[in-house]
C-alpha cells in the first residue's frame, strides 16, 4: 500500500510528466487554449495511459525481457528481445488507441462525443510512449503498480494541461509584449508552474513514515546537492531544489 501511495504521489507531483520530463509538450501547447478541450484531452490521456501501461507491462515481462519467454519453454531462458521494445510498444499503443476509439464509439457514444477527436491524436503523444518506457526503465514489480503508475501519470498530465488552459484563458486579457504573445508566454508560464511543482520533490510517503522521529530534511538535500555537481542527471537534480530555494 505504501508503495502504491508513493508511486501515485511521485507520478502526479514530483515526477510530473510535463514539468519534470516535458513529455507530451506538443499537444500540451497545442490543445490548451480553452479549459473544456483541455479537460477532454486530459481525460483521454488518463484513460489511454491507464490501459497501455499495464498491457505494455505484460508484454515486457512475458515477451521482451531477458528470460521472459521461459513460460513457453525453459530453453528460452537466455532469449533477450528487449531491442524490439520500441516497435512493440508503439504498435501496442497505436492499436490500443484504435481499439479504444472503436469500443468507445460503440458502447459509450456520449463519451465518444467528448473524447472523439482527441483519441487519434494520442497515439503520437510522447507521454504515452514515455509512460511505457519509464515503466520499462523503473521495473515495476507487479501489474498493479504498473497500472497505478499509468493512471497516476495520466492524472499528473491532466492537472498540468487543465491548469495551463485556465491560465491561458485569463492571460488573454493581460498586456504582454507583442513578441511574447501566445507561445512565448505559455513557455514562461509553464516554467513557473514547473518551479512550483518542484517544491513537491522529496515527497516520499514511506520515508516520511520511517524517519518521522529522525533527521531534518535539510541533510538529505545537502547530499543531493553534492551529487548534482558531478552529475547533471534529472533524478539527482530534483533533490537539489530544496537547498536552492531556501
Amino acid at each position, binding site marked *: 500500500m505504501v508503495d502504491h501511495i508513493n508511486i501515485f504521489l511521485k507520478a502526479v507531483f514530483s515526477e510530473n510528466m510535463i514539468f519534470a520530463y516535458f513529455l507530451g509538450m506538443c499537444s500540451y501547447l497545442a490543445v490548451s487554449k480553452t479549459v473544456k478541450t483541455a479537460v477532454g484531452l486530459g481525460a483521454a490521456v488518463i484513460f489511454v495511459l491507464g490501459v497501455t501501461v499495464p498491457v505494455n507491462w505484460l508484454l515486457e515481462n512475458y515477451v521482451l525481457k531477458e528470460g521472459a519467454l521461459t513460460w513457453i519453454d525453459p530453453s528460452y531462458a537466455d532469449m533477450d528481445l528487449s531491442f524490439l521494445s520500441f516497435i512493440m510498444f508503439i504498435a501496442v499503443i497505436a492499436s490500443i488507441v484504435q481499439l479504444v476509439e472503436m469500443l468507445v464509439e460503440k458502447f459509450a457514444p456520449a463519451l465518444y462525443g467528448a473524447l472523439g477527436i482527441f483519441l487519434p491524436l494520442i497515439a503520437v503523444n*510522447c507521454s504515452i510512449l514515455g509512460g511505457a518506457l519509464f515503466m520499462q526503465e523503473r521495473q515495476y514489480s507487479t501489474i498493479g503498480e504498473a497500472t497505478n503508475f499509468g493512471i497516476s501519470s495520466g492524472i499528473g498530465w491532466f492537472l498540468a494541461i487543465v491548469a495551463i488552459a485556465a491560465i491561458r484563458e485569463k492571460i488573454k486579457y493581460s498586456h504582454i509584449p507583442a513578441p511574447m504573445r501566445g507561445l512565448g508566454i505559455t513557455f514562461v508560464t509553464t516554467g513557473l508552474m514547473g518551479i512550483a511543482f518542484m517544491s513537491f520533490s522529496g515527497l516520499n510517503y514511506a520515508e516520511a513514515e520511517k524517519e518521522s522521529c529522525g533527521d531534518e530534511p535539510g541533510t538529505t538535500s545537502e547530499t543531493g546537492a553534492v551529487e548534482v555537481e558531478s552529475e547533471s542527471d534529472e533524478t539527482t537534480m530534483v533533490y537539489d531544489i530544496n537547498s536552492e530555494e531556501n
Partner: protein
Amino acid sequence: MSEKVKAPKEPLFSKKNKRLVVEPLDDNNPVTIQVLGICSALAITVSIEQALVMTGSVLFVLGAGNMIISMLRNLIPSRIRIIVQLVVVASLVIIVNEVLKAFMPDVAEKLSVFVGLIITNCIIMGRFEAFAMANKPWPSLLDAIGNTVGYGVILVLVSVFREIFGSGKFFGMTLFGDRIEGTGAYSVGYMDNNFIILAPFALFAVGIIIWIQRARNTKLIEEH
C-alpha cells in the same frame, strides 16, 4: 516511382529546393514556430554533447524516414498511414538506439528514454504527414535536413547557455576552474547557477529565444 509524366528536369539545388533547407532555420523553425518536437528539445539540453547526439539521431531518423515514406507514398493506404509511419520510425529509432548503445554508452545512458521518444517526436510525424506524403524523395531529404538543422540550432543554443552557466563547462571542458577545490573563478566567489540545469529553466530559455526571434521578425507575432 510511379511518376508517369516527365516533368522538366529540375536542378538539384533549385531555388525551391534551397528554400526547403533555409526556411526552417528561421521563419518556419520547427521548435519556435511550428511548436513541434518540444519534449526532447527541452529535456536533453543540459549539455552540448547530448544536444548534438540528439540532433544527429533525429537527422538520421528524419532523413531516412522522410525518404522511405516519400518512396512509399503512393503505396500507403491513407487509413492506416499513421501505423505505417510509426513502424518506419520505430525501426529507424531501434537502429539509432543500438548504435548509440554500442559506440556511445555514456551518452546513451544520459539520454535514457529520450532516444526511444524520437519515435513520437512530433517533428518526425509532422514532416511525414505534411511533406513526405506529397513530395518526391529528394525534396523530402532536403526538407528533413532543413528541419533537423532548425531543430538542432535551438537545441545547441539552449544547451550552450545551460552548460556554461549551469555546470561551468563547455563541451565537457571546465571553463572557470574546479568547483569542488575552489580554483579559478570559484576562488573569488563565482558560483554555478544550479537552477539553470533544472527542468523549468529550459522552458524560460526557449521562451526567451521565441521572444528575441519574434521581436526581430515582427511578422511572426501571434494574435493571442
